[in-house]
C-alpha cells in the first residue's frame, strides 16, 4: 500500500464528528435514568430533552414529533409495521403497501415480512432508468388502490445510487389520497436540504451514524396524529411507542452531530460534490466501459455518492482488489453471509442481473480529500481489469 488507507464508504457509516465526540466524552460519566424521579434522573431527563429539542430544531420539526430509536432500521420497522397494523385495525381491507423496488432492506424486507406473515399486498411502483420515481405510475397506483392502501413509502435519497426523490411531491399525493407516507431519510439528512415538516409526510427515519453521530441511535420523525402499533412494550417511553431506557449520551451526540452537519451543509456539500465530480470524470475517462448510475441532473444525486456499473467486472471482485490496495469501497448491499448479490436497486432501474452484479459505490464524506480520489483513480483501472479477467477465469472451464 503506497498510500494511507482510503475510506470511500461514508454512505455505510461516516466518522464521528468532533462535535459529537466532544458531547460524548463530556457526558460519558453520567449516572441517572431519565425516567427516575430523583435528582440524577432529572438531570438525565433534562439532557435528553434538551438533545431532543436541539435535534428537532435542527431538523425543522417539533420536539414532540421526534422519537428516539436505535437507528434507521428500527425507525423503518416501527413506522411501517406499526402504521400497517394501526391502519388495518381501522379498516381490515386496507392491506396494501405502496413502494418502489429501490428501497433499503430495512424497508424492503419489512414490507416483505408483512406480505409473508401479515397478509399485506405490495404494490411496487416502477422507477425510470435513472432511478427517479415514475410519477405517473405512482399516481395511477394511488388512484387504483388508494382505498386499500395501509401505507406508502418512498426513500428520500437512495443509499446505493444516491438518487434524491421528490418526497414533497409524493407526500402531497399521498395526503390527497388519504394514505400515510413514510420516508427513509437516513441517507438524505445532513447531505441534501430536506423538509421533514413537509405536508403529508406521516413519518421519516433518520440515523445518527450517517451524519457524524454514533452508531446505535436514530430517530423516527412522527407526525402527532400518527399512532403506529408499537413493536416494543415496556416502560412506556417515547409516547408509549418505543419503550426502553433512553440513550442520553447518544441523544446528545446525535444532536451535536446534526447541528454541525446541518449548519455546514451547503459548504460541505459543495466541497464534497466538487471532489465527487473529479472522481466521476476520472473514472469515466480512466476505466473503459464505466457507466455512471443515476440522474443526469447532479442536483438529484447525493453530493458524496458516485455509483458505477463496470460491465463484465463483478462488484465483489473489484471490492476485493481495491481493499487489498487499501481502498475501502462497497458493492452497495451485502447479506449476512458476506456475499454480495446483484443490486436490487439497479435491477429496479431496469438493469440486467448480470450488470447489477458489476457495480461499485464510492461515497465521500467529511474526512475525504483529493488524495483519496487520486488513490482511487490510480488503483481502479487495474482492479476492474483484474475483475474482468477473473470473471471468465472463475467460470466453467471447457470440459
Amino acid at each position, binding site marked *: 500500500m503506497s498510500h494511507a488507507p482510503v475510506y470511500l464508504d461514508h454512505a455505510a457509516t461516516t466518522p464521528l464528528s468532533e462535535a459529537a465526540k466532544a458531547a460524548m466524552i463530556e457526558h460519558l460519566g453520567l449516572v441517572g435514568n431519565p425516567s427516575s424521579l430523583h435528582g440524577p434522573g432529572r438531570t438525565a431527563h433534562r439532557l435528553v430533552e434538551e438533545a431532543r429539542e436541539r435535534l428537532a430544531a435542527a431538523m425543522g420539526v417539533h420536539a414532540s414529533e421526534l422519537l428516539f430509536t436505535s437507528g434507521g432500521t428500527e425507525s423503518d420497522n416501527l413506522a411501517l409495521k406499526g402504521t400497517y397494523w394501526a391502519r388495518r385495525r381501522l379498516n381490515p381491507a386496507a392491506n396494501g403497501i405502496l413502494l418502489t423496488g429501490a428501497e433499503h432492506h430495512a424497508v424492503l424486507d419489512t414490507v416483505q415480512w408483512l406480505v409473508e406473515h401479515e397478509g399485506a399486498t405490495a404494490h411496487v411502483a416502477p422507477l425510470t432508468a435513472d432511478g427517479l420515481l415514475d410519477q405517473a405510475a405512482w399516481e395511477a397506483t394511488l388512484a387504483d388502490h388508494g382505498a386499500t392502501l395501509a401505507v406508502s413509502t418512498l426513500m428520500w435519497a437512495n443509499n446505493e445510487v444516491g438518487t434524491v426523490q421528490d418526497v414533497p411531491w409524493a407526500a402531497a399525493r399521498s395526503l390527497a389520497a388519504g394514505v400515510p407516507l413514510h420516508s427513509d431519510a437516513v441517507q438524505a439528512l445532513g447531505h441534501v436540504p430536506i423538509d421533514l415538516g413537509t405536508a403529508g409526510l406521516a413519518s421519516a427515519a433518520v440515523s445518527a451514524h450517517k451524519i457524524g453521530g454514533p452508531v446505535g441511535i436514530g430517530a423516527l420523525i412522527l407526525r402527532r396524529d400518527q399512532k403506529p402499533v408499537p413493536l416494543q412494550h415496556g416502560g412506556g417511553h417515547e409516547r408509549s411507542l418505543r419503550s426502553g431506557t433512553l440513550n442520553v449520551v447518544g441523544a446528545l451526540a446525535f444532536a451535536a452531530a446534526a447541528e454541525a452537519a446541518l449548519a455546514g451543509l451547503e459548504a460541505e456539500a459543495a466541497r464534497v460534490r466538487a471532489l465527487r465530480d473529479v472522481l466521476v470524470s476520472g473514472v469515466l475517462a480512466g476505466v473503459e466501459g464505466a457507466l455512471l448510475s443515476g440522474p443526469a441532473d447532479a442536483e438529484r444525486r447525493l453530493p458524496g455518492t458516485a455509483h458505477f456499473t463496470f460491465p463484465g467486472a463483478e462488484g*465483489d*471482485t473489484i471490492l*476485493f*482488489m481495491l*481493499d*487489498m490496495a487499501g481502498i475501502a469501497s462497497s458493492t452497495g448491499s451485502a*447479506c*449476512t*453471509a*458476506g*456475499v*454480495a448479490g446483484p443490486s436490487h436497486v439497479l435491477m429496479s432501474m431496469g438493469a440486467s442481473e448480470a450488470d447489477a452484479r458489476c457495480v461499485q459505490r464510492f461515497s465521500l464524506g467529511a474526512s475525504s480529500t483529493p488524495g483519496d480520489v487520486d488513490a482511487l483513480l490510480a488503483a481502479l483501472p487495474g482492479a476492474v481489469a*483484474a475483475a474482468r*479477467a*477473473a470473471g471468465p*477465469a*472463475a467460470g*466453467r*472451464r471447457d470440459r
Partner: protein
Amino acid sequence: MEGAPRAAHPAGERQRTPQALQKDTTVAMKILAAMSGGVDSAVAAARAVEAGHEVVGVHLALSRMPGTLRTGSRGCCTIEDSNDAFRACDTLGIPFYVWDFSDRFKADVVDNFIEEYQAGRTPNPCLRCNEKIKFEALLDRAIALGFDAVVTGHYASVLRDEDGRVQLHRAADDAKDQSYVLGVLREDQLEHCWFPLADTPSKALVRAEAEERGLGVAAKPDSHDICFIPDGDTRGWLAERIDLAPGRIVDQEGRDLGEHRGAHAFTVGQRKGLSIGHPAADGKPRYVLQVRPKENRVVVGPGELLEVDRLVGIRPSHAGAPHPAVATGEWIDALVQVRAHAEPVPARVRWNQRDGAPAVEAELSGSLRGVAPGQSMVLYVGTRVLGQATIASAHSSAWNPDALGAAL
C-alpha cells in the same frame, strides 16, 4: 518419480528428492488460503502467514441458501463456519472475504451428484468439489487476481521431482491422509497448490497447534457428511430429487425376485431395504450387486459376488507428469484405492483405450468388496498418486454382471 530407478524407492517409502519442496517457500508469495471454518484450514493458513507470505483468507459460500445455522454434524456453508473462518483470520491478522461459488457448486457438484445417481453410479462429491470448485473455480480466480498459490488444510503433500515437476503424495499421517480426494488434480492445478499440513504426524498435533496459536476452532469437531446433505440421509435426499418408479429385482442369474420401489434408491453393496419377502435358497443374505437404471432393474445376489478384482476406469487424469506407461500401454504394478480411507490393493494396471477414449484397466491381486461404478479409482506407486479414473465397471473375474444382459 519416473526418472528414478524403481528399486531405490520401494513401495511405501516416501520418495522425496533433495530439492523436494513443494513451493519455494523462501520467497514471499501471494497466497490465497481457502478457509472452511475448520481447524485444519486455519492452521494451514497460520503456517503460510508464519512463513512470511502475504496471505488472504477466503471462505467459499457454496450453499444456495446462505444463512443456515446448522446443529449437529457440521459441513460447509453455514453462517457459523463462515464466522469461524472470519475469526481465525482475525486471529492471524489477515483479510477475510467470502466468495460466492454457489451457482457453480450447484451445477458442478450437486446436480452432478444427482445425475450420477440417476445413471446408476455412486459419485464422490468431495472429489468433484476439489476438482471443479476448490482447485478450478477458486484457483483460477486466485491466479487471475495475481495470487501465486492456494493453500488448503488438506492432508497430502506436493513434491517436485528432479526435473522440477510436481507430484502428489500421501500425507505423513496415514489416518488423516486425503490424497484420495485430491487424486483428480492435474499437474497444472498442483503447480499452484500448497498443503502445509502434509508432514504433520497427527491431527492431535494440529489441534494442539491451533490451541497454541489462539485459534478458536482448535476443538471444533471435524466434518464428515456430504455438506449439502446436512442430516446425512443421502437416500432420503435423493428420493426428493429423483422420481422413483417401481421395477423388478432379479438375482445373479436373472431370476425375478420381486418388486423394488425405484432403482435409484439402491447402491451396490446395500443389504438393507430390499424387502424381498422370501429368503434366498441358501438362506444367506442378499446384496445389491448392480443397479441398472436404464432397465430399472436391481440385481441382487450373495455377498461373494460383491468381491471384484477387475476394474475399468474412464476419463483418467494424471496428478503430475503422466507415468511413462501411459504412452506405452504396458502393465505396471501399482496400488488401487477406491474410497477415501479404504485400504489400497496391489494391482496390475495399464492405460489403454476403450470405445476410442482413454481408459485404465486394473487387475487386482486381491479383491475389493462392493465397488460401484462412479467411484474414483486412485492409482498409487508407493506414496505417490499417479492419477485416477472414474470406475465404469467393476466385477469379479468369476462373474460379470454385464453378461446378464442377454438373460434379461
